[in-house]
């Protein structure tokens, strides 16, 4: 009996330890970004484009990178959802449970999930060269969309597979078609879709390798899809490789902005999830 109690205690401490380690990790990352970036942070950084001597520590900001990142993430999240929602419903409502196609497709998405983003970047780059395209906002959007589609599909698929059979049957037995039934199913898995979007957006906004070859980098805000676009991760990367202290600090400021955007998005995501799960069948 005593041993049992000790065992219980031991594992409890282990669990608390693990949780604390992760928390400490998050806090220390935020601390290091804040301590190094806060000094360089100013409204200019967020609201101004890089000036003439920005990369040697003179005036300007990285609005170009913020705008580029938001453009790419917004567009690719929308495109990604557009492609992956039909895929998820095809797999889960139209195909039978033990369909071979669904099996093969799921493996394919798992493989895609595991491919590093630099490979997507290189793939996009090859195609762009083939068509004689230059680095552009469009290229970045397409590659990031490809990158996050597997994340979308796999995380929504997990939720859709838990979809109660009874809901589908209930809808069918009222005389609904499969398409009408999907609308019901959509309400049930809406929280899952919100979570999937959050995961995908987080990955998309933080990705540097995918956009490096495809979106390029520029000091201005793109006004058309064919112009190159700067992104926050690349802004961090380029400034961090500078030997000048001020520029390095600005890299941390850019990282801080990136983190804040992700944080805001996840708070928004949670809010939306809660709103959507109002009707969800437990």
């Amino acid at each position, binding site marked *: 009996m005593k041993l049992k109690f000790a065992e219980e205690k031991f594992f409890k401490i282990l669990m608390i330890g693990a949780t604390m380690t992760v928390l400490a990790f998050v806090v220390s990352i935020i601390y290091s970004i804040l301590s190094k970036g806060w000094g360089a942070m100013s409204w200019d950084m967020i609201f101004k484009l890089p000036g003439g001597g920005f990369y040697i520590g003179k005036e300007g900001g990285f609005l170009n990178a913020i705008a580029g990142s938001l453009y790419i993430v917004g567009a690719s999240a929308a495109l990604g959802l557009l492609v992956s929602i039909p895929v998820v419903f095809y797999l889960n409502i139209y195909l039978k449970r033990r369909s071979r196609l669904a099996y093969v497709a799921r493996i394919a998405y798992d493989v895609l999930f595991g491919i590093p983003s630099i490979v997507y970047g290189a793939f996009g780059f090859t195609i762009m060269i083939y068509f004689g395209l230059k680095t552009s906002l469009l290229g970045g959007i397409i590659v990031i969309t490809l990158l996050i589609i597997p994340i979308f599909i796999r995380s929504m698929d997990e939720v859709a597979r838990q979809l109660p059979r*009874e809901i589908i*049957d*209930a809808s069918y*037995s*009222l*005389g609904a078609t499969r398409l009408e039934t999907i609308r*019901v199913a959509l*309400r049930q898995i809406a929280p899952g879709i919100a979570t999937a979007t959050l995961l995908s957006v987080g990955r998309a906004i933080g990705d540097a390798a995918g956009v490096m070859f495809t979106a390029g980098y520029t000091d201005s805000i793109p006004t058309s899809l064919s112009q190159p676009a700067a992104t926050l991760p690349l802004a961090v990367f380029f400034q961090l490789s500078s030997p000048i202290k001020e520029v390095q600090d600005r890299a941390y400021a850019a990282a801080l902005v990136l983190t804040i955007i992700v944080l805001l998005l996840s708070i928004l995501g949670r809010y939306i999830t809660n709103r959507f799960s109002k009707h969800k*069948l437990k």
Partner: protein
Amino acid sequence: MKHLLQALSLPARPRTLAANGTSGKVAPLFRPDRKFNRDEQESELIVQNLNVHIKDQHILKNIHLTIPDKKITCVIGPSGCGKSTLLKTFNRLIDSIEEVRVSGKVLLNGTDIVSSGGSEIIHLRRAMGLISQKPCPLPMSIFDNIAYGCRIHGIRGRKKLRLVAQHYLEAAGLWEEVKDRLNTPATRLSIGQQQRLCLARSLAVEPRFILADEATSALDPISSKIIEELFIKLKENYSIVMVTHTLRQALRIADNVIFMYLGEVIETGPADKVFNNPEHKLTKKYLSGVFS
């Protein structure tokens, strides 16, 4: 060939509305069909030589049945005897089971359910309201649960839908309990209320049959009693097929009884006769509780 689509078409005004005359405002719900007025026609369900295989298993064996109009028909028998599969054949939900083969005929007004396809199935399912064992409200508000079925069959307009919702919630004895919170999620209702909501939802698309698959087995005694009483009331207008595990329940409400055992129909007939004077040895044994 007579199409199910026509055969299943609905009357000029919902019978329930006409019957208890709560409001003439709602009717007519669905477009009438001149040729087949449901009210003038007996809608018997005739099963001929029905066989169902799932994978290698022979689930239903040579079923011959007639399910009469406007009666409560209880299907009894030990678990695994194919009662639920029989119900699923009636509304073609059996289609979603993998590796299933169905042969034989199930005739509704002379139209075969087994061989119908495409949009006929949609009309068929609408004619066969299903109440499942575990109540399963759709993930939406109480109001939308009722309105959903009407909307997919082309009824629009919030005012109209509200009248429809009120009417069928009244028919299911739920209106008084939910009238002030029609927009709250259906999942907040108690399980007994949810089952009545599911009943109202099925009634709202104007079925002819109500298929109840152990509809009261997940409910508390009071809620099951309410459902039973509703069924007795509803049989004026609907034909009810009820799968049940509770013999006493069958005794209470059945007009007709079908006793199934291992995928075969052993005995069928009026409840009085089957319960008091069963012909078959197996039926006697089952009724006396030798096996269950």
